[in-house]
């Protein structure tokens, strides 16, 4: 690990100024991903600006019923919050499916969004990786691809985004509020993460000096039900092979609204717009759910080792929709 300077931020604007002013500076929040990367040699910042003590720790309800969640709210506290549990169970369950109890006590909302892929080649500095060293090649392509993307990948990178929370937030049309050198800004969670294209080193559309300050989740529609499903190699404390955030509103047996996002399948939380289009206005039947899943997964391009993710995602979508729309739901 290379030496670095440390600065404890006392206000958000000062933190942004510090990071924007110095190339090689980066924000430190809970540390559960960044400190690991320092040890592994994946990144070597010259300055860490510690924003973990900024009071971005509140969960507030706006007049229209939206929830505004401070960037430093710990994953454990967000999952356990009564308003999140009652209105957005998909978010509670997604958070609770990730990491472990002691890590969720450290990890923050902003940091969870900005965590980087767990692709084993990205994390092994002895192997080429376009995300870690642009232009060095992709070791995953032609390597072990069980964990990798089936949607939206490129010839330069097939890594997947590891967050569960972000998958739920993408389905909920959440918005990321940030502060940059030019003032505040916002971007939807769906727009926050990029597909790899020819620049897989860029995970998100934010610049290094952009500090996430909060996320905003619009109020749920009346009658909305939501859930989160996750398939993984062991039943706890593992990243998703495939996960699904799903929310539906059913009126008189017809799907009035459906929002779906897949995790573990792409470089970003994969909002399943094609499936949603099939679902909207259609009868809530297994035939509809199957057609919706297939509309989305027709675009899947699995690699040699991960073709299993396609039927896994299809089955998960159908089962979750049956659960959410069933009579005893």
């Amino acid at each position, binding site marked *: *690990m290379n*030496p*670095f*300077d*440390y600065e*404890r931020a006392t206000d958000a604007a000062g933190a942004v100024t510090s990071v924007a002013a110095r190339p090689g500076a980066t924000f*430190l929040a809970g*540390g*559960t991903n960044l*400190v*690991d990367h*320092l*040890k592994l040699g994946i990144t070597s910042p010259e300055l*860490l600006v*510690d924003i*973990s003590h900024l009071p971005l720790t509140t969960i507030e309800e706006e007049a229209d019923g939206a929830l505004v969640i401070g960037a430093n709210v710990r994953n*454990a506290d967000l*999952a*356990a919050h009564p308003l999140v*549990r*009652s209105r957005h*169970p998909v978010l*509670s*369950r997604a958070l*609770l*499916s990730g*990491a*472990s*109890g*002691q*890590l969720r*006590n*450290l990890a923050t909302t902003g940091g969870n969004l900005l965590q980087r892929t767990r692709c084993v080649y990205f994390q092994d500095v002895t192997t080429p990786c376009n995300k870690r060293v642009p232009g060095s090649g992709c070791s995953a392509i032609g390597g072990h691809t069980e964990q990798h993307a089936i949607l939206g990948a490129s010839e330069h990178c097939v890594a997947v985004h590891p967050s569960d929370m972000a998958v739920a937030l993408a389905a909920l049309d959440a918005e990321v509020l940030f502060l940059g050198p030019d003032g505040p800004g916002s971007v939807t969670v769906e727009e926050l993460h990029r597909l790899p294209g020819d620049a897989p080193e860029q995970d998100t559309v934010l610049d290094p000096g952009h500090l996430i300050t909060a996320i905003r989740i619009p109020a749920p529609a009346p009658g909305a039900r939501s859930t989160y499903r996750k398939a993984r190699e062991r039943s*706890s*404390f593992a990243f998703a092979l495939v996960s699904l955030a799903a929310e539906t509103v059913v009126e008189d047996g017809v799907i009035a609204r459906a929002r779906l996002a897949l995790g573990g399948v792409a470089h970003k939380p994969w909002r399943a717009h094609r499936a949603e289009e099939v679902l909207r206005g259609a009868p809530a039947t297994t035939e509809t759910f199957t057609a919706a899943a297939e509309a989305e997964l027709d675009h899947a391009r699995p690699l040699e080792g991960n073709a299993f993710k396609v039927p896994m995602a299809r089955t998960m979508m159908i089962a979750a929709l049956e659960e959410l729309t069933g009579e005893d739901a």
Partner: protein
Amino acid sequence: MESKLALTVDGEEHAIVVDNRTTLLDALRDHLGSTAPKKGCDHGQCGSCTVLEDDRRVTTCLSLAVAHDGASIVTASGLSGDDGLHPMQQAFIDQDAFQCGYCTPGQICSAIGMLAEAADGSPSFVTDDLAEAPSLTDAEIRERLSGNLCRCGAYVNIVAAVKQAAEEGTA
């Protein structure tokens, strides 16, 4: 590139100077001689370095010490009081919940933190109804302690020990 910081560990205040790269775990073990938290994986995956920071269970290997300046930490060594072992420690002995003992300090701190979370009504991934206060079934205990690995495989007895301590109301 060093920093001066204050840590309260098991009730004792310390002022130390550490390289900014020092993790909280290394500060505890190598600078303060507090060797109850163990270095297993050093990547947040095994839980053997778990302590209670401001009464919450946290891993210490993925935290920089400098970022925890001013923290109050209780390790497994600081759990016992004038009247003997902490009930969770006693339960681990009563239920034969360890073999080699390496993961045990982390298991015990994690279990104490976990019981407090459950008592606060925090759900887990296996909680069926997020609106209800969870009850500590075996499945709940296993899920909530999945961040602590035991390579001796003492899990069955660890669950029994946590149940014993929970029934004694020691959260």
